[in-house]
C-alpha cells in the first residue's frame, strides 16, 4: 500500500504499517508498569529551542575551540578576501543539489515502571533534496522519512521493556517511511537531562538520514551539493563535492593567524567583513580529534558575507559559515581555487531570497525550497496523532 493511494477507513486502517507499529509499541509499553498517554488532546510537539544549529555548533567546538588560518593574511587589520563578481548559474552552474533535513518530535506519554519513569518521545525525521535545472527552476530530487520511538538507555528503561520495544519495530519495506522504528539512546550519550538527550538523538537520526540521502545519488565532479547546516560530524566526512552551509554558528571559536599568538573571537574576525568578501579558511587546531574521520578527511571552514551588514543590531548579519571537506591536508593549490569558486557561486545565491522568513539574510533560496517541500511532506500533527492513537 503506497501512501498516495491511502484511503483510510475503519476497516483498512490496520493496513498502515505505522498504525500497526504504534499499536505494538503501546502494547509493549503497557505490559509492565503503566503507560500514561499525554493527557492533552494532541501530543505535544516538542520545542527544540530557538537555534538548534547554533547549539549543535557550540557542542562541536566546545572541546576544541581554536582554529588556525591556513591561508596567509597580508593585512591583519582587514583579514578578508574580496570575492569579485558572483558566479551565476549561467556562467558556471556550481551548486545543483540542495539538501535539508527536518524533524518533529512528539511526547507520546510517560512510562512508569519499578519506581522510575521516563518520557516516551516519538519523532518523525525527513530529508529532501531539490535539484536545480539549467533554467533555474527546482524540482524534487529525493525524499526520505523515518518514524522513530526514541528509547532511553537502561536504566531508566528496564531491560525487559527495552527488549519488548525493540522487537516491535515493523519493517514491511517500501512503505514510504511509514514503518515505526525504535531507536535507542546510547548510555554514554545520556549525560544530562534525559529529554534533551533524546531530542539530541532525534537530530542525530536526522543527520544519519541526511547522509543516507546525500549518498543515494551520484553527482559529477562539477556539480556540488549544499547541505543546510554544519557538517562537522564524522558521518559527513565521506561526502564528496559537498559543503555545509550554516545560517547560524557558534560564537565560541577563537581564530589564530600564525605566526601571531593572540587569537580573536568570531565577532572581532567578522564585524567589518564587507559584503561580497570571505574570511580566510580555517581548520581546527586539533583536527583529528575534531572530526575523527576514518578516511583522514577534515573540515575547513570560512565565512562569507552575503548581505550588507545591518546598520544596527547583529554584527554577524548576513554572514554564512561554509564547511568544506578537505581530503587529507589542506592544499592551497588544490583547495584554494575550489574555495574561491564555491564562495563566488554562493554570492550568486543571494537572489532570489526567502525574505522575510526567519534568518532570511543567511538563507539561500534553493535550501528554502527543500525546506518548504519537506515541511509539506512531513505528516500533519493531527494525522500523526491519529496514527499513534488508532
Amino acid at each position, binding site marked *: 500500500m503506497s501512501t498516495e493511494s491511502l*484511503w483510510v*477507513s475503519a*476497516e*483498512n486502517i490496520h493496513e498502515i504499517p505505522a498504525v500497526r507499529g504504534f499499536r505494538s509499541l503501546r502494547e509493549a509499553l503497557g505490559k509492565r508498569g503503566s503507560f500514561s498517554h499525554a493527557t492533552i488532546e494532541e501530543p505535544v510537539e516538542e520545542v527544540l529551542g530557538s537555534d538548534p544549529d547554533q547549539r549543535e555548533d557550540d557542542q562541536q567546538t566546545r572541546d576544541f575551540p581554536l582554529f588556525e588560518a591556513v591561508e596567509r593574511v597580508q593585512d591583519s587589520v582587514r583579514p578578508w578576501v574580496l570575492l569579485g563578481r558572483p558566479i*551565476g*548559474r*549561467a556562467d558556471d552552474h556550481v551548486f545543483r543539489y540542495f539538501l535539508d533535513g527536518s524533524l518533529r518530535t512528539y511526547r507520546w506519554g510517560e512510562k512508569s515502571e519499578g519506581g522510575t519513569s521516563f518520557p516516551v518521545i516519538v519523532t518523525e525525521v525527513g530529508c529532501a533534496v531539490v535539484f*536545480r535545472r539549467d*533554467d*533555474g*527552476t*527546482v524540482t524534487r530530487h529525493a525524499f526520505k522519512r523515518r518514524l522513530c520511538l526514541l528509547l532511553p538507555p537502561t536504566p531508566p528503561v528496564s531491560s525487559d521493556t527495552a527488549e519488548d520495544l525493540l522487537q516491535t519495530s515493523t519493517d514491511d519495506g517500501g512503505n514510504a517511511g511509514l514503518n515505526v522504528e525504535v531507536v535507542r539512546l546510547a548510555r554514554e550519550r545520556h549525560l544530562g537531562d534525559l529529554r534533551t538527550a533524546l531530542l539530541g538523538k532525534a537530530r542525530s537520526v536526522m543527520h544519519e538520514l541526511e547522509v543516507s540521502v546525500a549518498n543515494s545519488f551520484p553527482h559529477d565532479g562539477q556539480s556540488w551539493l549544499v547541505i543546510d547546516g554544519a557538517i562537522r560530524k564524522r558521518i559527513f566526512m565521506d561526502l564528496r563535492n559537498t559543503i555545509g552551509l550554516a545560517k547560524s554558528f557558534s560564537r565560541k571559536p577563537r581564530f589564530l593567524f600564525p605566526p601571531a599568538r593572540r587569537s580573536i573571537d568570531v565577532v572581532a574576525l567578522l564585524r567589518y567583513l564587507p559584503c561580497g568578501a570571505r574570511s580566510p579558511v580555517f581548520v581546527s587546531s586539533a583536527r583529528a580529534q575534531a572530526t575523527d574521520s576514518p578516511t583522514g578527511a577534515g573540515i575547513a571552514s570560512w565565512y562569507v558575507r552575503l548581505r*550588507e551588514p545591518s546598520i544596527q543590531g547583529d554584527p554577524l548579519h548576513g554572514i554564512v559559515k561554509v564547511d568544506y571537506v578537505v581530503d587529507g591536508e589542506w592544499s592551497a593549490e588544490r583547495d584554494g581555487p575550489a574555495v574561491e569558486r564555491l564562495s563566488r557561486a554562493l554570492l*550568486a*545565491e*543571494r*537572489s*532570489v*531570497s*526567502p*525574505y*522575510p522568513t526567519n534568518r*532570511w539574510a543567511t538563507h539561500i*533560496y*534553493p535550501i528554502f*525550497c527543500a525546506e*518548504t517541500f519537506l515541511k509539506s511532506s512531513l505528516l500533519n500533527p493531527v494525522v500523526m496523532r491519529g496514527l499513534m492513537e488508532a
Partner: protein
Amino acid sequence: MEKPSKTVGEPRQQQEREHLGTAKPAEPAAAKPAESEDFVGKTSATDKAPNTVDEFRFWLRHGQLLNPFDFVAVEHESGTVSIGVVREMERITDAQSHLSNFVSSNFGDVSEAPNTLRVGTTVVTASVMANSGFKLHDRPDAVEVSLPIASDKKVRFATAPEVMFALGVHGMRNRVPAGIIEMSNGTQVPVSVNGDYLLGPEGAHINASGTSGLATKTSYLMFLIQGLYQRLHDDISIILFNVKQHDLLHIHEPATDLSERDRRIFHSLDLEPTPFDESDVHYFLPRGVRGAPNSEHVPAGHQVYAYEFPSAKERLDLLFSEISDPQGTIESIVGFIRETPTLVQTRANETLKAGQRVVTWSDLRAFDSYPENVVTHAYSLRRFQRHLTRLTRGNPLFPDAAGEAVDLGDEIVRIRRGHVYVIDMARITATEEQAFIVGDVMSRLEEAYLSDDQDRPKRVVILVDELNRYCPARERLSSVAEQLIEIARTGRSRGAILFGAEQFKSSVNRQVTENCATHVVGRTGSQELEDAAYKFMDRMTRSSISRLGKGELVLAHPLFRQPVRVVFPRPAFKRQEAQ
C-alpha cells in the same frame, strides 16, 4: 426511499468494484481516457481556498496554455467526470510581499539576476458546469455527484462531447445554433441554445450589449436570426430595423467576405452559409424628398413608406413621446385628436374654413378648434403646434399626400410566415421620428396578434438596435418605451420576441433587460460592467469581458450554469463592412 447502491465516502476500491458491476457512468463519462500529456494540472484544495460544490481550483502545468472560458474536466467520485469552465487565473509565488521581491533583487538592483527562479504557479479557478453522473438502480436519469472535487486530481481539457454535455445540449429540444466555443487546445465545439428559452414558452428575448465596433453584437443577433430563419422558416417572421447606414439592406445578397473558417463554422452548426431568400425579404425605405427613398442604399424591389395624417392619427402619441410634457397639456391635445373620429374646424382661421374637416398634417397644424377643457391656455396650443410643425412641416416622411408610398403599419398587420421585413431608418436622425416608426410597428403588430388570422406566424422576431434610444433607463416612460416593455413582459406568450442591442445595458430600461432570458455581452468597459445590469454574471466573468477580443462574445443562457464565450461566423449576406 430506496437505499443508494453506493455511498460517497466508502473506500474507493469498494466503489470501483461496484462501479464495474451494476453502476455505470452516464454519458459522456465514457469519453476516451486522456493521455498523460493531455493533463494541464492538478486540483488544489487548501484550508483558506477550499474546493466547493460550485468551483474548484487547480494549478497549471509549467508552460501550459489556458484561457478564461476554456472547459476542463476532472475525474470525480463514483467514476464520474466533472466539467468546469475556467473563470480566473492567478500567478502566485512564495514571495510574501512585493518587498520580498525587492529584497530578493539585492534591495532594488534591477541588474541582479535570479540564480534560482522563485517557486510559482498559475492557480486556475474553474466553475463547475456539470457532472456526468452515474446510474443508480432503475432511476432514469444519471445521479449527479455534487461533492466538491478532491485535491490532487488530474485536470485535462474537456472533450467536445463533454462540453456539449456540460451545456446541456444532449437533452436539448429546439436547438438554436449559437456559435462555437473555441478552446486553447484547438478544440471547437458547436453551441446551441434552447429555443424554448429564446422564443418561448419557457423564456424569451435576447439582449446584446458591448462597445460599438468591437462587440459585433448586431452581427451576432443577425447570425442567430439567420439560424432561426433556416431552422424555423415556416413558423416565424422577422422584422429588422436598420439603423446604421445600409448594414441590413443587402441581406438577400451573398456575402463577399466569407472565409473558409466561416464556412466551416456554418457547417459545424448545420447551417447553410447562404443569404436570406430574395423572395422572402421586403425592404421598406423611408420616403424622402419628392417621394424618393431616403436611404443610403436602394435595394431592388423595395417599397417606400410614409405616414399620412389619417393613418398616423391613432399613434400620434408616439410622435410626441420624446417631448417633455410635465403638465400633460400635449398629452391632453393628442388624446383629443386620437379619440375624435373627425376633427372639424368650427371657426374659420387663416388656413381653415369653418366646418372644414382635418385630413392632412397641414390641416392639423392649422386646426385650433379644441374644446376649452382640452386646451386650457393658448400657450399650450401654441406649444403643441410648434412641435407639430417642427416634426411634420416639410418632412417627406409625414406628407399630406404620400403618393406611392405605403403605410408601413398596414404591411405589418399583413405579416407573413417565413418573411423578413427590413425597415430602414438609418437616415432618420430625429429620435421622435425613429420612436414613431418603431412604436408604430409595435402597435400594429399588436393589432395583428389580436386578429383571428390563422396564417400569422407563431413567432415574430423583432431586431431593435440601439435599444437605449427607444427604451432608455429613466423614470418617465415614453409611449414607445411602454410598448417595448410590454413586449418584453408579455411578448413571450404572444410570440413577439425582442432581439435588442445596445452599447450599454445600463442605459436601457431594466424591465426590458431583465425580461430577457438570454444575454450576450461583447467587450465592455470595466466601469460599465460595475452597473447592476451586469450582476447576473460574477466578478470574474465581468473582468474577462473587459478583455474580450473583437468578435468574441459571452453568452449567458438559462440552461447554462455559467456564461460561456462564443465566436461566430461573419454573416452569410453582403455587409457594408465588406464593401
